[in-house]
């Protein structure tokens, strides 16, 4: 991009627990309401107070949402990372710093501007000085970018809704910041924030809250959860919205929420709910999935519907709990011992977080199995634009559920595990109904659900299960294709990589490549994927992990003759994907091929 109007990256370095998040959100929402395409990434530590935090705000006329590969304006507030924050900058960066830190800014090649933020804040309120200081950099920024104080006021007002004193004091700090900057800073920057006509439908929301709303509109009956970053806010979102949206006429709730004692219990509750005919779900992250493995296998083999929403953080093990990755995919797809295969829905934006939130239940009941939602920290915990969520287009699909004797009579030769329709999906009855009761079990069972160790019975059951899940492929969300005429290069990607793909595409096009894209939205993969790969000379599977997990799954499953066209670009360092970095990796793979 040539122009610096609405094209810049701001990086704000603070420590967590100091309240800087409020200031950062004021900046983000101000620009958003001005109609500037803007995105924010919160890089926070796995600790409650005192450790370094960075907030990255990117304005981009092209609508790029990746964090950007370089910083244009750096705000330094944190003594602990002060030196590193400053030395790593490229020449020409604008630096705004808190003079009261009394630390040096030795970068003659940059444009550094100080402000005695704490001292100024102390005048407004001595007790709250440390906290208030953050509002001064908002002022400084506003000056540099030419943001009008009135635009900020709107964002402050909506953030501190109704708290007049807070609004007043914060605005005072911000205005003092603007004033100080215009008096003391000698700036020749052409970075500018300019108002644009704003689509009044659009608003920002975190992926996890979108998911929460989706599940509520999906008729969730039971949420069991065990707190874990970055999934907790899915549960907290549900808890927040339930009273308003899911209170029955008698005043009771239509969704039970249980904070479980651990993830094993949370998964068990999901199975219990599904077995009894309800819509149960849990949300977790990688370590939770590992702990839920045994129950996932039970769900697969006993054919009990359930939903697990995985918000991926960096593994293995406890890993980087507050950083993002797509590292759980291969585990989700084949979780638990023995031969298994699970349905995975992969949202790429907040609209899909909502949609797959409700759809997961329909699919779980349709296929009588565990269905995963697969999101990640970047999508789940950062704010992304939507034009508003769409109401489910059809009634809840309860699948092949037999509720009464008539329905049972309509099924010829009913048996809990009999493939009456030839699609691998059997019918089921519910406890409490008195209709054709069986003892569910994770051990071998015949078509009527009776215990069996018979080799043939077992082998047939397993074959049917394979057929059942395979049959789901083309009923799952299909890939989103965007194809160029000449079918030179296809990029296959998924999930929150969506936020960087336009920019990656543009970078590659600018280097002379003609790029089609294919965003996978579910596993097992849709048949359209195969034709996409067939049509293109080369396809690259682009993902945020070390081992190329989707690539591995595709290599296993795709027809062999397609594999020579398929290549992997996998990289993960915990950061949301920067477009330049991933583009370079794609280019170097393409160059190796030459």
């Amino acid at each position, binding site marked *: 991009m040539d122009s610096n109007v609405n094209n810049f990256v701001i990086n704000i370095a603070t420590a967590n627990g100091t309240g800087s998040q409020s200031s950062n959100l004021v900046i983000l929402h101000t620009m958003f309401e001005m109609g500037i395409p803007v995105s924010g990434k919160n890089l926070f530590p796995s600790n409650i107070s005192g450790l370094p935090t960075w907030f990255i705000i990117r304005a981009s006329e092209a609508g790029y949402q990746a964090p950007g590969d370089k910083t244009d304006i750096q705000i330094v507030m944190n003594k602990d990372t002060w030196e590193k924050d400053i030395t790593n900058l490229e020449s020409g960066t604008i630096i705004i710093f808190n003079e009261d830190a009394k630390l040096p800014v030795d970068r003659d090649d940059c444009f550094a501007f100080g402000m005695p933020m704490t001292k100024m804040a102390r005048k407004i309120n001595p007790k709250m000085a440390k906290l208030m200081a953050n509002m001064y950099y908002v002022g400084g920024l506003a000056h540099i970018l030419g943001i009008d104080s009135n635009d900020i006021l709107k964002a402050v007002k*909506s953030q501190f*809704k109704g708290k007049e004193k807070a609004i007043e004091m914060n605005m005072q700090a911000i205005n003092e910041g603007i004033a100080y900057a215009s008096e003391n800073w000698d700036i020749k920057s052409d970075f500018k924030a300019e108002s644009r006509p704003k689509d*009044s439908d659009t*608003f920002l929301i975190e992926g996890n809250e979108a998911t929460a709303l989706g599940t509520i*509109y*999906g*008729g969730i*009956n039971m949420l*069991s959860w065990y707190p874990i970053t970055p999934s907790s806010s899915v549960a907290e979102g549900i808890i927040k*919205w339930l009273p*308003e*949206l*899911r209170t*029955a006429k*008698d*005043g*009771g*709730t*239509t969704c*039970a*929420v*249980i904070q*479980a*004692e*651990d993830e*094993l*219990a*949370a998964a*068990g*509750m999901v*199975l*219990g*709910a599904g*077995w*009894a*005919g*309800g*819509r*149960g779900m849990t949300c977790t992250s990688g370590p939770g999935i590992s702990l839920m493995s*045994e*129950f996932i296998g*039970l769900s697969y083999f006993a054919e009990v519907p359930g939903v697990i929403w995985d918000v991926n953080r960096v593994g293995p093990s406890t890993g980087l709990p507050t950083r993002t990755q797509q590292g759980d995919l291969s585990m989700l797809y084949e979780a638990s011992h023995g031969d298994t295969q699970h349905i995975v829905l992969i949202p790429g934006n907040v609209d899909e977080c909502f949609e797959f939130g409700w759809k997961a239940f329909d699919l779980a009941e349709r296929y009588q199995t565990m269905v995963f939602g697969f999101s990640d920290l970047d999508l789940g915990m950062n704010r992304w634009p939507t034009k*508003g*969520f769409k*109401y489910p287009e059809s009634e*809840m699909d309860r699948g092949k559920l037999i509720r009464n004797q008539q329905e049972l009579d309509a099924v010829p030769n009913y048996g809990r595990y009999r493939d009456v329709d030839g699609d691998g999906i059997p019918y089921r*009855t*519910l*406890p*409490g*109904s*008195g*209709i054709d*009761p*069986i*003892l*569910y*079990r*994770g*051990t071998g069972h015949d078509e009527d659900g009776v215990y069996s160790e018979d080799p043939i019975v077992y082998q047939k059951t397993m074959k049917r299960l394979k057929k059942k899940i395979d049959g789901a492929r083309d009923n799952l969300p299909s890939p989103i294709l965007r194809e160029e005429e000449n079918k030179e290069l296809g990029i296959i990607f998924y999930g929150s990589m969506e936020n960087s793909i336009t920019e990656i595409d543009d970078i590659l096009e600018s280097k002379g490549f003609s790029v089609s894209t294919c965003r996978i939205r579910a596993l097992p993969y849709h048949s359209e994927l195969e034709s996409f790969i067939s049509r293109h000379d080369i396809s690259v599977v682009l993902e945020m992990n070390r081992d190329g997990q989707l690539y591995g799954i595709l290599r296993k499953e795709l027809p062999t003759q397609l594999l020579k066209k398929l290549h992997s670009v996998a990289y993960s360092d915990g950061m949301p994907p920067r477009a330049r970095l991933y583009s370079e990796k794609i280019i170097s793979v393409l160059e190796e091929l030459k």
Partner: protein
Amino acid sequence: MCPGCGHDQISNVIIQAAWENGLPPEGIAKMSGIGCSSKTPAYFLGKSHGFNTVHGRMPSVTTGANMVNKDLTFIAVSGDGDTASIGMGQFVHAIRRNLNMVYIIENNGVYGLTKGQYSATVEKGSKKKKGAVNTQNPIDLCAMALNLGCSFVARSFSGSKKQLTALLRAAISHKGMAVIDVISPCVTFANNDESYRSYNYVKENDEVLHIVDYISHYSPIEEVDIPEGQFKEIELFDGSKIILETIGSNHDTTDVVSALTAVHEAERNDKHVTGLLYYNGEIPTTTETLGLTNAPLCSLNEEEGRPSEESLIEVNQRFRSS
């Protein structure tokens, strides 16, 4: 089941109690984990749905089922391995939540299904077919439940049909978590090497001619009925003895501390105190605490289970203007 297994007697009592309480079978859900004990739901109340889950995790599955269909009567069977080892966490937390269910522990001090390893409830000094003398304290699951404020705690013996039936009937009627720890000897693996009718004793000294894979037949222990406040020495199949004591009618079933004291005292005297140890019908159950709507959640239809389209428009609008 091996012939003579205590678990079979308990199954019969469950059938009896359900019948005496007039429970329709479709209103019952049979829940279990993994073990010989957990296999028994295959042999009782065949007209009820059931779920033989995974090892030690029955309570969580029961919790989920209870949340979406609170009108079912949950009768759950577990083993001492299933509950006191792998399942300890879920046992504790189901109690803490006062989940509305009957939780029967078929307690034999061993892992029956995996061929006789000690469980965590086995008494100190036991020396059985496998392994060395046990030197660890047994976990008393009644004491555990009492300590956690469980709303119904009882102990019985698989041979005490009358007592067990009465306790089970009360447990089924109880609103909340009812834990019944039932001493239920494993005739195949829980016999003492030293006792004169034990597997090993017989093998060494009498005419058992085979070394592997032979399960002796025992008759189940016949009816044991001990008046309140009294105790009796019971001879088990292998000639070893246990002393059962029925808690006195003066015992205050509303006083946790005195129940705990009774359990600990009995343990000190190598006795097992049986009967209803504690009872409190006033504690809210999980679904009450959560304030669920009255209809079982699994029965809700589209309108009841999914908010309206208007509400979503309103939600979207709220976000836009915030």
